[in-house]
């Protein structure tokens, strides 16, 4: 019986190939988009990170307030690893960019510095050799052991089966490879695939510029996670951690930060702070895609209703042959299921193509980002679920109506009701499309505003390259000289306008706090201002205006500690008075104070959307650092600049790895990635919705004209002019469009309020966005109504009256 329904359904689809193809296409695109989006959200948020044993007992932990899970110190980590009733243990980790020499030239690699219990707590085994362990790798400074990932084993060691015992150099230190992690495990963070894991006991050796941090109570640098004991809850673990932290702070009152406590969250593919934002963002995108699916369903429902009417005679015959109402309804619904199944098959293909087009590796991130989006059982279930829901919307209800209407054909109420139903569908389409278009317009305008933001520094023609002097083994003075020499070598090349270096790249999302400013009375933001360590030419390279003096030869390494503050910090500290020449307490300065020599113009430091931020610039010539980013300004093409940078580095020190060179514009663009994704997705969906709404309106008005040909002939014979007929038909379409726009406007306002905080620059009351969206849709509705209206006006009353 089901098979008969399917055969009947196939004949129906093949009998009207164009409209069937359109219906399948519209549904397939929507289902494909939903599936792809859900696959991405699944990979990043839902699916347990691969290779972790019993992932449901893993939690992410951290210090912070308002739900933030931030870094802790190594001594505090030790406290949490004392015997506990709720957790088996806590691991700590931090990202470790390394210069790695495995064979041949040094290469830039990416590692994790992890506590020795990291693999044990995550339940990760070794494919070859062993993983890190507290007993074998805990001896401070004397455990030069590294575990490499399966991917790194392939990439850097050619899959050598004898890799265990191989010696590698990491940041100038010799390590022995003790194991290869099992293939299914990359890291506990979905996006990150480190090459190498190094034990915390070797922290000072691989981060010599940071000094020994393992006993520093006030150095918050470790991200953490823990494994719950069987039966223990997150809340219990949290309470225990908070109690321990309180006791720790009592023992170390100087390091206590007001308002901060320990928190925990289930371990997901992304860190909790990022996961929250991503969840909201992907949720909003899913809503938009679901709207398109709904519009497509409404379109198809209208088509199914029309087909049902056309099959009235067939349904009557089937009924006369003994088919009951439910049997007929089921037959029509099964045909809809067939349509949905075919659309799903194409939708899955579309999802594959969309997911295959995503290449996160191409993004200019400070660390390599890699994630595989695949269509696992959850996305496929979502696909099937979406298809079934769609079939229910566009199939079951029209099926029930078609069967029900057949049995009460003579009733004028049913005839009018069918007409109202299709009108309702058009109104719904127009309303939903307006919501989509408004969302698209709002995101586009937000992107526009973000682009228009004055960053306060030059972007065009500026290139960046990471410079890591850690592996050279040089002392601080030599490292500083190497940095200066590289900068000078680059600047000397014809075509290079300026070169400099700094610790932090603006708008990269990174923030660095170097010390405490002033005294305890200062507000937190001023007491711990964001900072950057910059070479003399930094301000000139980025076009940042400085009042007063810039860093230069006069500010010697062993001389008076100086700083340049930005205008916001100057205003906050000195309330309008010039700060130039004034001194302020700074605990990271040689003699505990800084003399302010200049005021830099405000710019954006961490995010495009940030407000006025107090900022402190410190001179690279007075501070030790091994890791910098080069900034090079030139009108030469990027490839040429990259060659110049690499050649300059090689000339100064052949042992340094050749860095990747990125345009600063790409880094800024990366910060606007949420805007670009949102506006891109919403824009495409908006156009798709517009097309569907226009086709839906055209279809409805066209159907109205076709089904009322006789009536139009009568009206013409009664004295109506063709222009009057055209006007009446057009008015019908415009009336429906107008109602749809009104309803859509209300829904769009609600949507705008819901997404208002999602991206910077999105303004709920953006009248231009609303007006533009409404205008575009109105034009589409008018055009879609006008074509059948013109056709109606050309109807010959004579032939119309013969039309039954």
């Amino acid at each position, binding site marked *: 019986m089901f098979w008969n329904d399917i055969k009947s359904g196939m004949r129906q689809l093949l009998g009207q190939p164009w409209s069937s193809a359109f219906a399948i296409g519209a549904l397939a695109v929507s289902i494909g988009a939903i599936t792809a989006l859900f696959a991405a959200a699944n990979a990043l948020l839902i699916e347990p990170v691969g290779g972790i044993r019993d992932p449901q007992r893993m939690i992410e932990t951290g210090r912070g307030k308002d739900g933030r899970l931030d870094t802790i110190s190594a001594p505090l980590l030790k406290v949490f690893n004392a015997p506990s009733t709720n957790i088996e243990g806590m691991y700590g980790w931090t990202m470790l960019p390394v210069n790695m020499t495995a064979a041949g030239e040094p290469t830039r690699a990416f590692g994790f510095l992890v506590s020795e219990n990291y693999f044990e707590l995550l339940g990760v085994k070794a494919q070859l050799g062993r993983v890190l362990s507290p007993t074998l790798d805990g001896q401070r400074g004397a455990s030069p052991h590294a575990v490499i990932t399966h991917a790194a084993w392939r990439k850097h060691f050619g899959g050598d089966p004898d890799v265990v015992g191989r010696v590698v150099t990491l940041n100038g230190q010799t390590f022995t490879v003790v194991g290869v992690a099992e293939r299914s495990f990359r890291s506990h963070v979905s996006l990150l695939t480190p090459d190498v894991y190094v034990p915390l006991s070797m922290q000072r050796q691989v981060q010599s510029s940071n000094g020994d941090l393992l006993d520093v109570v006030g150095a918050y640098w470790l991200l953490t996670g823990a494994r719950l004991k069987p039966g223990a809850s997150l809340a219990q673990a949290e309470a225990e951690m908070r109690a321990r932290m309180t006791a720790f702070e009592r023992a170390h009152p100087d390091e206590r930060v007001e308002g901060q406590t320990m928190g925990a969250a289930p371990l997901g593919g992304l860190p909790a702070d990022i996961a929250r934002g991503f969840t909201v963002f992907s949720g909003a995108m899913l809503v938009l895609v679901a709207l398109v699916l709904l519009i497509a369903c409404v379109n198809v429902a209208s088509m199914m209703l029309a087909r049902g009417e056309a099959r009235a005679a067939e349904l009557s015959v089937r009924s006369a042959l003994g088919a009951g109402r439910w049997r007929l309804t089921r037959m029509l619904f099964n045909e809809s299921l067939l349509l949905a199944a075919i659309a799903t098959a194409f939708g899955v293909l579309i999802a594959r193509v969309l997911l295959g087009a995503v290449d996160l590796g191409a993004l200019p991130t400070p660390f390599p980002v890699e994630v595989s989006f695949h269509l696992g059982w959850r996305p496929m279930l979502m696909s099937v679920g979406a298809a079934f829901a769609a079939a229910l919307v566009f199939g079951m209800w029209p099926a029930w109506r078609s069967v029900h209407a057949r049995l009460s054909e*003579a*009733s*004028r109420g049913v*005839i*009018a009701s069918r*007409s109202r139903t299709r009108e309702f569908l058009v109104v719904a389409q127009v309303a939903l499309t307006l919501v989509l278009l408004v969302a698209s317009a709002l995101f586009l305008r937000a992107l526009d505003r973000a682009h228009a933001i004055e960053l306060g520094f030059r972007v065009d023609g500026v290139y960046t390259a990471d410079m890591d002097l850690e592996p050279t083994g040089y002392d601080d003075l030599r490292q500083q000289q190497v940095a200066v020499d590289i900068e000078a070598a680059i600047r000397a090349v014809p075509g290079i306008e300026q070169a400099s270096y700094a610790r932090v790249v603006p708008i990269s999302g990174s923030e660095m706090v170097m010390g405490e400013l002033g005294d305890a009375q200062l507000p937190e933001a001023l007491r711990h201002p964001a900072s950057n360590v910059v070479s003399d030419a930094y301000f000139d390279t980025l076009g940042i205006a400085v009042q007063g003096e810039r860093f230069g030869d006069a500010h010697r390494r062993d001389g008076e500690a100086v700083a340049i503050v930005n205008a916001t910090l100057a205003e906050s500290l000195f309330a309008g008075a010039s700060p130039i020449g004034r001194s302020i307490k700074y605990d990271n300065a040689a003699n505990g104070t800084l003399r302010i020599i200049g005021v830099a113009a405000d710019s954006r430091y961490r995010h495009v959307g940030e407000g006025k931020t107090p900022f402190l610039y410190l001179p690279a010539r007075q501070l030790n650092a091994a890791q910098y980013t080069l900034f090079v300004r030139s009108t030469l093409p990027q490839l040429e600049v990259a060659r110049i940078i690499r050649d300059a580095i090689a000339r100064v020190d052949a042992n340094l790895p050749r860095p990747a060179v990125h345009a600063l514009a790409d880094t800024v663009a990366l910060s606007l990635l949420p805007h670009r994704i949102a506006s891109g997705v919403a824009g495409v969906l908006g156009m798709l919705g517009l097309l569907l709404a226009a086709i839906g309106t055209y279809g409805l008005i066209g159907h109205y004209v076709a089904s009322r040909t*006789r*009536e139009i*002939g*009568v*009206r*013409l*014979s*009664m*004295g*109506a*002019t063709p222009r*009057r007929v055209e006007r009446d038909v057009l008015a019908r379409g415009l009336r429906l469009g107008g109602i749809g726009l009104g309803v859509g406007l209300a829904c769009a306002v609600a949507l705008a309020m819901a997404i208002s905080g999602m991206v910077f620059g999105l303004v709920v009351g953006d009248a231009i966005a609303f007006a533009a969206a409404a205008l575009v849709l109105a034009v589409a509705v008018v055009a879609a109504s006008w074509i059948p209206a013109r056709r109606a006006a050309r109807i*010959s*009353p*004579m032939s119309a*009256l013969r039309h*039954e």
Partner: protein
Amino acid sequence: MIQLRNLERSYPVSGGRSWVLRNIKLDIPEGDFVSITGPSGSGKTSLLNVLGMMDHDWSGEFAFDGQKVQGMSAKQRQAFARDKVGFIFQHYHLIDDLTVAENLDLPLQYRDVPAKERAARVGDVLDRFQIVGKKDLYPAQLSGGQQQLVAVARAVIARPRLLLADEPTGALHSSQGQMIMDLLKQLNGEGMTIVQVTHNEDYAKKAKRVVSMFDGWLTEA
């Protein structure tokens, strides 16, 4: 009132033309009641469509109240027909979504009659045709005879000079058909010029004269 001379209508077919009206000569004085009979395909309805100025693709001479219709543009003919002609169809062709009163109101709307006057004339016609009680009903709620009654009322409400009826009793059973024919006679008695097309010989004889059509040719009976 109406003179037709050398009226011809044909359609192109493969190999030539198909003639539906051949050299028609017909005079219809004011107040006349003419029945046009003939077998199916003889051209009766085609002649009616020409008289009603719904068909513009003919040749010959057609004068209506002294005005030469053949010289008018399509738009002029439409306006002329709107003022002069009322139509009754075999299948009533009432608008399903409109009530009886609204169906009657429709021709007056298309003639830009002011609302108050429309309401008055609709009331008059409802009263005259004794269908006041049905004014809020929809066509689907009426019998065939009642629907045709409403159709006749709709055709005359705009006070046309000529009433054309295409098989007005074709879809009705005998008692209903008789009622409609009696109504047409009554209207003719009041001075309405009526031309009907009918297959029914008895109903044809209700008219003042009968003309026959065969293969596009017209002959007076």
